[in-house]
């Protein structure tokens, strides 16, 4: 078995040591740091991009929030204005209605008073005429001259009875 030929051990071990150490040094000092740097650069780039994306997303969200706040404020203001205007119009309408009602009431009162006056006046005239008629009728029928006061009293009594 050639593997057990001890005479071949020294050259194999010497060249194994040389080649292995050379390869180790080349990898440890040159090759692997280069690969690690490339990987690290890529990882950093990706992390940076992710961070930037995160930041932009946050900014976009802030803008959306501000927009929504402004929208809500505008809506509230519009509602406020609408309410104020409605209130004002309602108040004006009520005021006008009250004034009209007052005027109507006053006019109605005045008219009623006038009617009452006319009625009283009419009733007063009626009493005098009735008393005159009653006196004239009595003089014609009986020939007796009735005292004006008595005739008036009689008319009054009848009118009170009938009214």
């Amino acid at each position: 078995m050639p593997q057990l030929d001890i005479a071949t051990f020294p050259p194999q071990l010497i060249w194994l040591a040389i080649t292995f150490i050379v390869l180790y040094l080349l990898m440890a000092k040159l090759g692997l740091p280069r690969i690690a740097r490339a990987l690290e650069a890529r990882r950093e780039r990706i992390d940076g991009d992710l961070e930037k994306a995160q930041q932009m997303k946050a900014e976009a969200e802030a803008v959306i929030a501000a927009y929504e706040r402004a929208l809500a404020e505008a809506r509230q203001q519009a509602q406020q204005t609408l309410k104020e205007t409605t209130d004002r119009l309602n108040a004006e309408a009520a005021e006008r209605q009250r004034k009209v009602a007052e005027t109507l009431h006053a006019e109605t009162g005045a008219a009623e008073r006038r009617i009452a006056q006319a009625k009283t006046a009419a009733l007063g005239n009626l009493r005098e005429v009735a008393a005159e008629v009653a006196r004239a009728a009595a003089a014609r029928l009986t020939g007796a001259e009735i005292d004006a006061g008595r005739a008036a009293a009689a008319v009054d009594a009848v009118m009170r009875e009938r009214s």
Partner: protein
Amino acid sequence: MVHENPLHQFTIQRLIPIHIGGVDASFTNAALVMTLAVVLITSFVMLTTRRAALVPGRWQSVTEMLYEFVADMVDTNAGHGAQPYLPFVFTLFTFILLGNLLGMIPYSYTFTGQIIVTFALAITVFIGVTIIGIVKHGFGFLRLFVPHGVPPVLLILLVPIELLSYVIRPFTLSIRLFANMLAGHTMLAIFAGFVVALGIAGILPLAVDVALVLLELLVAVLQAYVFAILTCLYLADALHLH
């Protein structure tokens, strides 16, 4: 080139005889393949990452995947604090992988089929890991041989077993790789010998050899992985004591 002996392929040939102070340091066929492995690994890593692009090309991706594969292996198996040993595990993995794969090339040489080579790698791992454990934990490193939650009486039995299983690690680690390579390449050589001997019927052993080559490619990758992952697990023991 037909070899009578299927083990002939493992013979060391001194390509450039060198002797330094009576020590044989000849540049052998094994040394040639080792050097080739180093050159191939280094040039592949350096060329594919020459212009380290933010978006990697095909070849750069291969190198990065290899790196992340080993880094992930170290992270998950050796755990926290094992990153400084990544270059060693990476070197070990790629060196054995290339040794195994280059050995699959006909007329090449499989240096991982040499017990002295695999043992040297395994004992390096063993000594390195033991030193790391002692430096990190001092005498506390001996706790590694005392299992938790075991009645003290059983410890009389278990501590020697733990100690033994620790000490035989370099042997199991080296023999696993060596035996796999030896068996695979010997099988290939035996069936290849039949191809010539059987004439026209040699098509059958040839088919077997084709299948074996595919199997051996799998074994080549798998054994490099096993060697590296066991190194990581031993490292985990040294760093975290179970």
